[in-house]
């Protein structure tokens, strides 16, 4: 972002500039791409200084942005508020996909299949009836999903599998891989909008419920490689 744009964005507001105005400024900056995904925002105090408003006003605005999913706030060392660019138009997906090489996409799929495949195998050994019931709910989420709900349902289903494997490390690896390339792997575009993914989740869930680890692993790997294949075709068509 050019220094000019940045300083204009953070220019002081007139004194009736309330929470809404701060929200509007920041929303514009994020949706217009002036603030990029994962960029760290200045501290509340700094923002308050730049906008010429009270810290509490900034805090309220940031809370609203958090609720809209436009920023996320992390505690502790390396903490602060970070931009989460919205994922709501095909354009941004295409841009994200266009930025990834086929080499890296294949490698991500391989890594993801290693983690998610093993998680599914262990889940088949270790899932209690409660866990299976939650997996069935998570699998059902995808059948009725569209847009961001698809990504949410995919993320949740695979996290539930890793959790059913009783493995914090695999769950953590799963969450990290889900975030790679801006969550590209589970965007609706990779699904062709079809029922294939929902069927895949049903097949994985059935294998876990039947304590069939090898079938759970195979169904998971197929699900991931199919998704990567579709993304690859799409990437080649850009």
């Amino acid at each position, binding site marked *: 972002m050019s220094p000019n744009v940045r300083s204009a964005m953070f220019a002081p507001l007139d004194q009736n500039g309330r929470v809404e105005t701060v929200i509007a400024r920041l929303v514009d900056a994020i949706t217009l791409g002036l603030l990029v995904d994962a960029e760290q925002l200045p501290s509340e105090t700094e923002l308050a200084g730049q906008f010429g408003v009270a810290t509490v006003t900034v805090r309220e605005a940031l809370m609203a942005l958090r609720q809209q999913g436009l920023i996320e706030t992390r505690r*502790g060392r390396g903490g602060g508020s970070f931009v989460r660019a919205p994922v709501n138009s095909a354009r941004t997906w295409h841009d994200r996909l266009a930025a990834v090489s086929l080499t890296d996409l294949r490698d991500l799929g391989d890594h993801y299949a290693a983690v998610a495949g093993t998680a599914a195998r262990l889940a088949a050994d*270790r899932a*209690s009836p409660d866990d299976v019931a939650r997996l069935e709910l998570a699998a059902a989420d995808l059948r009725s999903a569209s847009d961001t709900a698809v990504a949410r349902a995919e993320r949740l289903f695979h*996290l539930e599998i*890793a959790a059913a494997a*009783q*493995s914090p490390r695999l*769950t953590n690896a799963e969450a990290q891989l889900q975030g790679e390339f801006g969550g590209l792997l589970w965007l609706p575009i990779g699904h062709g909008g079809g029922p294939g993914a929902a069927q895949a989740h049903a097949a994985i869930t059935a294998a876990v419920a039947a304590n069939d680890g090898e079938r759970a692993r195979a169904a998971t790997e197929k699900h991931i490689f199919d998704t990567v294949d579709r993304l690859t075709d799409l990437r080649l068509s850009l």
Partner: protein
Amino acid sequence: MADARNARGDTVVAVSDLVEEIFLALRPMPAAVANMLESASGVGARALDALAPLACSTLGGLIVGAGFVAAPGVLVDRQFELAWWKRFDGTPNRLIADLDPTSEKFFDYTRMPWFTVPRDTGQRQITGPYVDFLCTDDYTLTFTLPVRRGGAFAGVVGADVQVRDVERVVMPHLRGLGGRAALINNQGRVIVSTNARQATGSLVRNPDIPGWWAAGAQPATGDGTSLRRCGDTQIALLVT
């Protein structure tokens, strides 16, 4: 034989005491939360910050996290909200979780047993061991009690304990029992055991633990197996 029985009895009491101590730490919280929810007309997510001193006073010992989780519709400004505190670098801090239902990362906690069991039964609940991917990604036991406002379920208060810490505390007891000993939950999930082939997180399939539990969880011995409930908790001691 009598010695072995005594040792098992001591272990059962030790585990029961450990659990009761955690629920005791939580005891003031349901009423405090209910008072807060009733005292103001329309409580919002931010107002729950007032629970910090009480929640943080329960941190310590085995308890690494504590707080209140609202039932949908209880707060005026958020459908889902956690007011949950943990120590980061020694300082208690309120957790931030992604509870915006439209977000890609949203996780609906109303499916979790730590929420559903107190809601549906009015009883206290020990959930886990499970991977807490909502907050910490740790392997966790979560202890929860229902909160009621005006007779209606308003959410749960609870405390998190890490499984590795329970292991540290109870392993000496289990090692003193001879044979292979395991603490298991009411699903048959192993919390900690002295048997590599029955690792933490695995399910005991034989004997049928959920069946034994449903039948009243009376002390059972036979075939070189002893199964005893630990006091009034959802945890049992299995010695084989």
